């Protein structure tokens, strides 16, 4: 049987209660998923709100992806809670001084918004399926379409107005939702590693790059799977977006890291020991080097040369995969890193993730895979590629 808790080895002096790490790898996955949602939504809004036509191809797809991801966001939290059945206590009696208290409301609002926008976007397909789809399931699609089967031009114009409005509301909501996740960590004064006013913005920009990267990877893979040609203008647009936001994200993280070291407050010796020791590979080599600078240089080269062929697709997709990996590592280095540096400022704890169990790596992997399983199922029912198919 899985033990009740895992004891973390330590060096130096740590408080006895710190030898069990409170937040596991599931709490690494939670901000990662939220970030992907925010990023995917931003990409979708680049077309729906900002009218950037090169993103039209992926606008519906990223919107659907944002929904699939968002409904899975509560999963890691529920798995982590000691009493998941009491999760609604936070909504029934939200303790308003807590950064966590509004999560339920924020998430519920955002899921509702995403469902509404997706509904308006895919309503014509529901209507179509309700009339011409597989017979035994027609009633279901009529139900999903909520009996609204008017596909006339005025009706579609009306739908479009709603999509536009929802996308506009969705931008501050996405930004707020993810900035707030950063605040959950940044507002804690007990951990020097987290305690920073920059945390919400850092989380936000890394969210946008991860979401954009995910759209790139998912779009390219779906084109390969469906055997359709990749829209190069779209890939180029996404590459520019990724490049621009990546620069800001890296700058913010660099500034935050530099000021942490420069401020050199109490416990800096231990932080330096951590930075020079356990952090070298996951942070400097993998997150910053491989995951951030390689894509940054690659994308800079592409932007400079203005490549426009197969090489563009390969280079951008590779960069996107690396960025996805780097942001996951960033979440890990923040969430776990903060807990590995003892509150005593005189010791380090080592987190060793369990493989099995409710908070193990397998569970985390399952949670990470769940939204994509959901996306694959959704793609069996509706197609976000209608424009492509018509072309």
């Amino acid at each position: 049987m899985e033990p009740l808790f895992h004891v973390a080895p330590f060096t130096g002096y740590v408080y006895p209660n710190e030898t069990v790490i409170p937040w596991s790898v599931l709490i690494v996955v939670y901000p990662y998923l939220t970030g992907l949602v925010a990023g995917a939504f931003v990409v979708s809004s680049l077309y729906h709100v900002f009218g950037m036509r090169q993103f039209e191809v992926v606008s519906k797809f990223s919107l659907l992806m944002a929904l699939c991801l968002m409904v899975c966001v509560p999963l890691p939290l529920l798995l982590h809670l000691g009493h998941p059945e009491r999760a609604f206590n936070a909504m029934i009696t939200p303790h308003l001084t807590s950064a966590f208290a509004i999560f339920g409301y924020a998430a519920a609002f955002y899921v509702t918004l995403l469902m509404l926008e997706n509904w308006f976007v895919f309503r014509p397909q529901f209507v179509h399926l309700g009339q011409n789809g597989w017979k035994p399931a027609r009633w279901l699609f009529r139900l999903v379409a909520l009996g609204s089967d008017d596909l006339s031009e005025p009706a579609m114009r009306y739908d479009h107005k709603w999509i536009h409005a929802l996308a506009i509301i969705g931008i501050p909501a996405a930004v707020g939702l993810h900035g707030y996740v950063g605040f959950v960590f940044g507002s804690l004064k007990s951990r020097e590693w987290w305690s920073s006013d920059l945390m919400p913005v850092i989380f936000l920009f890394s969210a946008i790059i991860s979401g954009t990267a995910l759209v790139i990877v998912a779009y390219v893979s779906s084109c390969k799977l469906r055997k359709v040609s990749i829209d190069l203008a779209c890939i180029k647009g996404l590459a520019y977006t990724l490049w621009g936001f990546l620069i800001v994200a890296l700058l913010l993280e660099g500034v935050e890291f530099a000021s942490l070291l420069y401020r050199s407050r109490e416990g800096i010796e231990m932080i330096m020991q951590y930075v020079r020791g356990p952090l070298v590979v996951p942070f400097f080599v993998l997150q910053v080097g491989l995951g951030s600078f390689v894509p940054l240089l690659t994308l800079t080269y592409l932007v400079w040369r203005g490549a426009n062929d197969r090489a563009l697709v390969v280079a951008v997709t590779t960069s996107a995969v690396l960025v996805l990996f780097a942001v996951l590592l960033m979440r890990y280095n923040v969430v776990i890193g903060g807990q590995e540096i003892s509150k005593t400022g005189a010791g380090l704890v080592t987190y060793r993730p369990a493989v099995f169990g409710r908070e193990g790596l397998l569970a985390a992997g399952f949670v990470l895979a769940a939204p994509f399983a959901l996306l694959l199922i959704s793609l069996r029912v509706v197609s976000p590629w209608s424009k492509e198919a018509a072309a």
Partner: protein
Amino acid sequence: MKKTNDLAQRARRNFLRDLGRGAACAGAAGAGVLLGATSQATGKQSADANGSFPVQGYDWTKHRWAYAVDATRCIGCLRCVEACKRENNVALDANHFRTWVERYVYLEGEEKPRIDTQADPVNIEAAGAEGKYRFANRYEDAKVEKAFFVPKLCNHCTHPACVQVCPTGATYKTQDGVVLIDHKYCIGCQYCVQACPYGARFFNHAKGVSEKCTWCYHRITKGLRPACVEVCPVEARLFGDLNDKDSPVSRFIRDNRVQVLRPETGNAPNVFYVGIDKEVR
């Protein structure tokens, strides 16, 4: 602990019942928000007004509990740790403590002290088991320049960071100054464990909720002293009521120049120390 939970739970239930009546009148819509924002203040008042506090004859508006530690007296016998574990049914392992004792040893030629607690593997080996507590004589052959013990526990802060971050209000500050956790309402997110700068909180894995020192609330509301204070053979640990000028704590604070741990956090702890050193966090 069971008793503590029951006390807290009953107080909470009564308050929720009263609040429910109020909320029914006020309208359901605003109630949820109101409940969260004012839970503590309203809770206290309603419990007092009805005299519904679970312990007969105890009025929590009449006390202001505080704790004092005279580190110069502590001999590191660890009876307090053992008493606490037994009294409060705390897991008998080396990773969950409501109170612990730190040992600071400055060796000749070394700038930083060597710090350990009863939970250190060497000390556990000396004690014989995780449920037994003693400090190993590990510096026998070393040249010790300065050494002292520091008992630690929840500081029951005036501005507790743990209460601030609790998303449900399951952990709260009582009117008599104690920070408690409602084990039947806690969702087990461990945000409070993260927020406490003193490492005083831990997760009760069997119950799925956060846990910490309650100053033995089940005892002090009956006029008894916390278990750790009761068993301390050298009066290194003192407990009392700040409203009572002659209580051991009031006298201690009056007679000494006391310190608190990590004053820079703004948490305003209510455990007052004498005889600690710059390296004590």
